[in-house]
């Protein structure tokens, strides 16, 4: 009886954990990185980097990242070196693949400091979907909402108004792969890119997890059979 109690306790804990993550799929948009078997959509993340570089980087830093880390998105070392060479760091020199992402000059919009985006998906509840909702959530303030000076209305942001203006618009960047750069597409791509940057090992972790679970499930069967056989014969 006790054995069954502990087993159900353990299973309950695991299911609760899985359930908490599975909620994400209820949102209107689906990301390849969603869910416990998700993996980073490299093409989307590459486009997302283009959006970051072209739009977000003027205010938001990503100080945990180096340009060389972009190779994990499927860029060749030559492409990465090219990207880095095109960035002029604060000391006036061009960046190398080993440089950290360029820190933008510290801007403060009425006391609000743009947060570093390296781990933003891990730091905000709702993660990838929140980033998408936030970036597409700008709009005219509904009647009865008085905006603070310099603030914009954003339905996804807690409190409804945010010091960041709406920055994404159609064709804010030109995608190298020919994808049509709509506002929603840009938001989704940047959300996938930030998902990768918050957890660069997401795809590997899930792949390792699947292999480890299959292997150890097999080992459990073998070990339990061995134990039962030995106990039946000698115990």
């Amino acid at each position, binding site marked *: 009886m006790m*054995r069954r109690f502990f087993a159900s306790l353990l299973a309950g804990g695991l299911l609760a954990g899985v359930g908490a993550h599975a909620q994400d799929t209820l949102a209107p948009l689906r990301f390849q990185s969603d869910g416990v078997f998700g993996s980073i959509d490299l093409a989307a993340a590459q486009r997302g980097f283009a959006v970051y570089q072209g739009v977000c980087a003027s205010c938001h830093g990503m100080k945990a990242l180096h340009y060389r880390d972009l190779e994990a998105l499927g860029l060749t070392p030559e492409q990465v070196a090219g990207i880095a060479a095109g960035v002029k760091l604060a000391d006036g020199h061009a960046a190398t693949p080993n440089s950290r992402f360029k820190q933008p000059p510290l801007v403060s919009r009425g006391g609000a400091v743009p947060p570093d985006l390296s781990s933003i998906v891990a730091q905000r509840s709702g993660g990838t979907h929140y980033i998408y909702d936030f970036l597409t959530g700008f709009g005219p303030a509904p009647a009865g909402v008085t905006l603070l000076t310099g603030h914009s209305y954003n339905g996804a942001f807690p409190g409804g108004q945010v010091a960041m203006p709406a920055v994404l618009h159609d064709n804010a960047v030109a995608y190298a792969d020919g994808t049509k750069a709509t506002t929603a597409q840009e938001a989704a791509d940047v959300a996938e890119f930030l998902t990768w940057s918050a957890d660069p090992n997401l795809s590997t*972790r899930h792949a*390792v997890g699947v292999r480890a679970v299959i292997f150890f499930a097999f080992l*459990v069967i073998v070990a339990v059979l061995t134990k039962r056989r030995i106990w039946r014969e000698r115990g």
Partner: protein
Amino acid sequence: MRVEAKQGWLASRVPGFTCVRDMLCESRSPGAPWLATLPTLLAAMLVLLLASGVVLAPFYDPRHAYAALQTIMRDVPGGWLVLSYHQIGASLAFALLYLHLFRILLVRGYRAPAEFGWMLWVKLLVVLLLAGWMGFVLNGGVGGHSSLFNAVNAAMLLPGIPGAVAMWVFGGASGGATLARLLVFHALLALCAAWIILMAFAADKKARPVLQGPGVPFWPIYAAQYFAALSVLALVFAVLLGFVPHWGQGTQNTIPAATAVIPAAISYPWYLTPAAGLAGAFPGVAGHICAMILAAALLYALPWLDRSRGARHGRVYMALTWLLGVDVLMLGLVTAFPMGGVLPKLLGLWFYFHFLVLTPLVTMMEAA
């Protein structure tokens, strides 16, 4: 045989070696339940924690804790995996220890002559709670930082030379110097835990009843059982590692402590929540400290709070012990998801009531 001669040579010179060898090779009573493997599984988790801790330590920097963890996760080859070993290893070590302690309570395994073993398991709990809290703080996130901030402030209030503990143990206001100290204590406590669990194994072995009739050898009978139990543990570990690596780890440590964010309520890892809940049962900082000490002392003194003097299990005792288990579980839940009201306090106070009043009363009545 040569091997035996060699073992004899070693055994006659290293007393501890005999102990370890006996633990492995002696005949045991047959048919031990699966749950009797819990201490071994716990030992395996402690070994994993030590090994992964040794690998993580060279990359850790107490003065740039958050950045060091980012480096471990992003730049160290397989660093994310080793960090997960450490985090999930801690989670499972606590799970196994809590289950083991609860099982001892249920079967009343704390009574003479096993009371010394029980006291060692309680010591292990205290040491692991301290080490676990330090690990939580060493993450360098907002959650750990505000918990440390509270701890340093509490230490300032301790009697004695004003702020002695705060100055000497914590190194003043919570910052890099404090984390550097905590890193050393964290490692020392890990070694203590390893020592305590070895002692507990030895004590439990001494307390086992003398074998009636022929026993069964460790190899292959119990080796097979331990191996099967370990592979189940590995499977659970793999599920957590691959798919829910941050389950129960607290949600605030993803934000660096440097940003001036003070959370309304600290989100502790799940294994610290019952202790945090117990501390909150008494008001004020001094109350929190006293509550923690009292809770540990009560567990420690349990062999003497039980007045049954070797009588058989009573139904009321069993029911109360299950109730205590539910109480501690609920206490963890209401600490993890704060709800206000009087329920958290009641749940905390029940723990003290259970050990201080109910245990002596019920066991005395049931023995009579």
